[in-house]
């Protein structure tokens, strides 16, 4: 595995909810002790159901939300304790791409202004240079230079997503969090963006934390995959290993649930019952146990630690040794 660029250790994000003068309120554990690394040039995928804390993780890493506790290091530099000034400098090293191509561009700014702002904030180039660079950036993401003069509403969703990517690239980051950048796009457009990301990654040697819920996209794009459930990591490992040899029942259930675009395939699979429990009141022990077909009494007692298997494959399940999830259920 490549030298780590990003190191996250025991990261927690808790939101206080409904606290008023007359009411104590409760804590929502959006992220509850997450540790992982992203290597230089590596693409790490993050999957999990809605509300599992994927976005929160992406933003906490960039310190767009303040972590409650834990460590985040980029290139050896601790992010969580940076002052506002230093944080700004760090912003040129890590960037983010968003899901919603409609909400992620300022409708009042032309594309050129949006991109130039990024350059200006980090004092890249002179005013004249910037015009040139904006054009270059647009070409890099497959848009004509003339797009700079236009406004976001004049573009289609896919084009806007390209603009969003160009903005992230403007400051030459080493690391990008991509928060479901293709989920809102049509399948035909989605492929264009995936290709673009692939190209950029190859050309620029970018590291990516790619958040998604489409398992096939993740598998296609990522070197390693992290499976998140209710703010905890359930399993992580290389894409090949995880998809072919899932060791956590949740991973297996996710893989099973993903519809395969092949009408000839009929599979046996685990169907999860019910929905994600509330992160305000997570189950004791293993948070997945309430929906887990393999749950035993012991699961309620201890929070299973992330155990390491061969080649960095790590799983948080006390029964991971005894279960063979490769085989279909009987």
């Amino acid at each position, binding site marked *: 595995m490549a030298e780590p660029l990003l190191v996250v250790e025991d990261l927690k994000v808790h939101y206080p909810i409904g606290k008023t003068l007359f009411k104590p309120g409760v804590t929502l554990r959006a992220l509850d002790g997450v540790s992982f690394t992203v290597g230089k040039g590596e693409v790490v995928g993050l999957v999990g*159901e*809605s509300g599992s804390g994927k976005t929160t993780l992406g933003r906490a890493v960039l310190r767009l939300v303040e972590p409650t506790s834990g460590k985040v290091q980029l290139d050896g530099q601790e992010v969580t304790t940076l002052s506002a000034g230093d944080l700004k400098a760090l912003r040129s090293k890590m960037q983010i791409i968003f899901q919603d191509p409609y909400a992620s561009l300022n409708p009042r700014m032309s594309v050129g202004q949006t991109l130039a702002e990024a350059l200006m904030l980090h004092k890249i180039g002179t005013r004249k240079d910037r015009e040139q660079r904006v054009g270059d950036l647009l070409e890099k993401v497959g848009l004509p230079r003339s797009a700079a003069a236009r406004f976001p509403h004049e573009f*289609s*969703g*896919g*084009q806007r997503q390209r603009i969003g990517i160009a903005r992230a690239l403007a400051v030459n980051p080493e690391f990008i969090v991509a928060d479901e950048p293709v989920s809102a796009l*049509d*399948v*035909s*457009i*989605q*492929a*264009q963006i*995936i*290709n673009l990301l*692939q*190209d950029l990654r*190859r050309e620029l040697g970018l590291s990516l934390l790619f958040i998604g*819920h*489409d*398992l*096939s*996209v993740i*598998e*296609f*794009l990522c070197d390693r995959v992290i499976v998140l459930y209710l703010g905890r990591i359930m399993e992580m490992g290389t894409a*090949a290993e995880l998809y072919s040899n899932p060791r956590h029942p949740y991973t297996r*259930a*996710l893989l*099973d*649930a*993903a*519809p*395969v*675009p*092949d*009408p*000839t*395939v009929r599979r046996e*699979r685990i*169907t*999860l*019952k019910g*929905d*994600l429990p509330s992160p305000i009141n997570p189950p004791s022990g293993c948070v997945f146990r309430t929906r887990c077909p393999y749950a035993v009494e012991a699961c309620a007692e201890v929070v299973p630690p992330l155990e390491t298997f061969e080649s960095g494959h790590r799983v948080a399940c006390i029964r991971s040794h005894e279960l063979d999830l490769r085989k279909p259920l009987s």
Partner: protein
Amino acid sequence: MTDQTTPLLDIRGLVTEFSTETGVVRAVKGVDLTIGQGETVALVGESGSGKSVTSLSVMRLIQKGVGAITGGEMLFRTRSGQVVDLVKQPENAMRAIRGNEIGMIFQEPMTSLNPTQKVGAQIAEAARLHQNLTRKQAWARAVEMLALVEIPDPARRADVYPHQMSGGMRQRVMIAMALACNPALLIGDEPTTALDVTVQLQILELMRRLQREIGMGILFITHNLGVVAEVADRVAVMYGGRIVETAPVRELFARPSHPYTRGLLDSLPVIDHAARASGQGLRLRAIPGSVVDPRNPPQGCDFNPRCAWVIPACRAAVPALLPVVPEHRARCIRWNEVHG
């Protein structure tokens, strides 16, 4: 399984238009579609291709003053065996069909239920409306329906408000509501798109089970080819307001004969492990360009600006739906090259 002779719903040349500030938008430009009894037809296509408008047209729920059905016919076989043209039905006759003979489920389970009514009441409303039930009977029916859609503890759950339920539950409620009167046809407009994959699977399995039990025809609108492969008997692919290809599901996946269908299947991220290892082939075959602007459709074939097989003839006229094999038709003059 399918009754070929008299389909449940036979849409012919449906045209639906909207008048907007920037002019008239033809959202549906002559759709032909049949759904047999007990058959599940999947309608796929990209955003804005007219899938929802087609389904709303069937329900005659296009908002007055905003849009209107301006052509075609929709022959629907009612429970009594009578065939009526939905386009020509007066409003009150339509009312007797909606929710009764045709049920519908929408994409957003969060917003499609009335937030201020208990779910039981909302299901009972449909039953009372068409089946002359008393309040009590209707409520009982609602509870029964909730049980049918596998909601645990249905009697208690009937008594809660939608916001007290999860997304998957609400979608079950929607299904219960749509099926409350045993409709012959169920239309689902992307009923699982907003759900997590795990919940999507639950819903798909539920719908499959219900169809087996009740035997209604289903028009299942989606843009997820995986879901299509799961549920459909037959698939219709829409592009730019027209059906561009229609075929039984296996046939379609095996031999896509329209460039758009082909492109769609090709652009799915599927791992080629060999290529990956060699560092090659990490690219997808995406369809270039962007979706059609309905205000400004291209000349001739709607897909021609994005098509790799385009020839001048494609720009001259809109191609007809050409038969590929029986039951498989594609709107492309070069279909035999495409599926090759």
